[in-house]
């Protein structure tokens, strides 16, 4: 190296000796003092004691539960594997009220939303049972973004 180059190197490192620590300290001070993030989640409801019927599918297990008096009903949904559809909701319908057009399913007019499920986890939803009872009950797993049926579970 020639002398001017050595001098330039020295000047650059003298500047860096000031700039680098200053930058690190400023960045350190700028770290936001964030509170720990806690997941907003409802406490899971207690499971009703009587299992009325269980439908076991490859990717999930669906159980209809009730109390002794048959005044309260629950849908117990357990994902066994990760769902590939991130936008899934469950509808309740009577089993003979839906119709298909090609691969697309239009929800029946009287289908009622039960709730939304994520790709993983277990879910418990309260279900209102009408006079027809559970014998003609159907749960529809529905992709609301692509507007198509993923699966239907008949009880």
């Amino acid at each position, binding site marked *: *190296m*020639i*002398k001017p*180059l*050595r001098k*330039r*190197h*020295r000047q*650059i*490192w*003298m500047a*860096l*000796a000031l*700039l*680098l*620590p200053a*930058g*690190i300290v*400023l*960045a*350190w001070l*700028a*770290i*936001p003092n964030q509170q720990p993030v806690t997941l907003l989640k409802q406490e899971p409801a207690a499971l009703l004691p009587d299992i009325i019927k269980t439908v076991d599918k490859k990717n999930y297990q669906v159980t209809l539960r009730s109390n002794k008096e048959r005044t309260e009903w629950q849908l117990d949904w357990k994902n066994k594997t990760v769902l590939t559809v991130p936008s899934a909701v469950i509808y309740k319908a009577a089993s003979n009220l839906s119709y298909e057009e090609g691969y697309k399913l239009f929800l029946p007019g009287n289908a009622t939303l039960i709730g939304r499920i994520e790709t993983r986890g277990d879910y418990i939803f309260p279900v209102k049972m009408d006079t027809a009872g559970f014998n003609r009950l159907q749960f529809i797993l529905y992709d609301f973004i692509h507007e198509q049926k993923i699966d239907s579970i008949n009880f």
Partner: protein
Amino acid sequence: MSASYTAVGWNRQKKIYDWLIAGFCFSYLLLFTLVTLIFNGQVTFETLLIRSTSTLAILLLHVILAIGPLCRLNKKFLPLLYNRRHLGVTMFSFAAVHGVFSIMQFHALGNTNPLVSLFTSNTNYSSLAAFPFQALGFVALLIFFLMAITSHDFWLHNLSPKVWKTLHMLVYIAYLLVVMHVMLGVIQFESNPLFVLMILAGVATLTTLHLRGAFKEKKIDTMNFSLKQEGFVYVCEVNEIEQGRAKIFCIDKERIAVYKHDDRLYALHNVCKHQGGPLGEGKIIDGCITCPWHGYQYLPQNGQSPPPFKEKVSTYNVKVAENKVWLNPVPFAEGTEMPGAVIN
């Protein structure tokens, strides 16, 4: 050293050097992957790739920047300097993998051009805490890219040493950008102080080494030679110079290396024509002064590279009287034949 351009002038030392680099990088990536999988089994391949290559590139950058001053402080580190450019290109390759996969992961899934998205998805340029740190990394990567593609001697000769050196000194700006990329990026989300301490340790080590090396060199540059006689300057005693080695003196702002070889003393300009390496820190090998940086060679009696090479450096008049070495700091034309001073 070669008379024509070849992609890489391979020799045994370069092969060993490159195998060591490859072995180190492979071991680091393997270790990083294993440790990550032990402590975070849910990590995805993309995340693992982005993190492992970024930390490896930063580690290599620190090693690269430490080699220069280490060599100035201790000659034992000179072998590290020999193939530093390969280490630099390796570092750029890992930085590029980190950059490309990060852009793909965070900017390539929308409708906006990924490079436009990189600079416009976060426009908090006035905020320190929310600063778009990815832009800093991108600019640093651009500098490393320019350095990597111009690292061959072809570009050194065609861009001119001055332009080439100026371009490659941008590495210091790139280093500042990388440090701030880390500090304003990952450090803002990681609560573990270990990361800050590691960066601080790296910065402190490099700054100390560079400043120590710089002030050691400054000491040589400001040496005073008061004893003068008919244009000659008394520089040292004959026995202060080792056989086959040189001692460097800075007279009138120029560094001159005085070599002892076959019971004679020879004086040459200290700056190698290749990349400005310190010729006086090299040894005489097979009768040729050999630059410690990249092995360029010059004959001590005329400062010319042996044929077919064409590099030449200036020679100086040197004499010995009563075991004292006297040097005339006025240079002869590059490649001028000088018989050397016979040691009594």
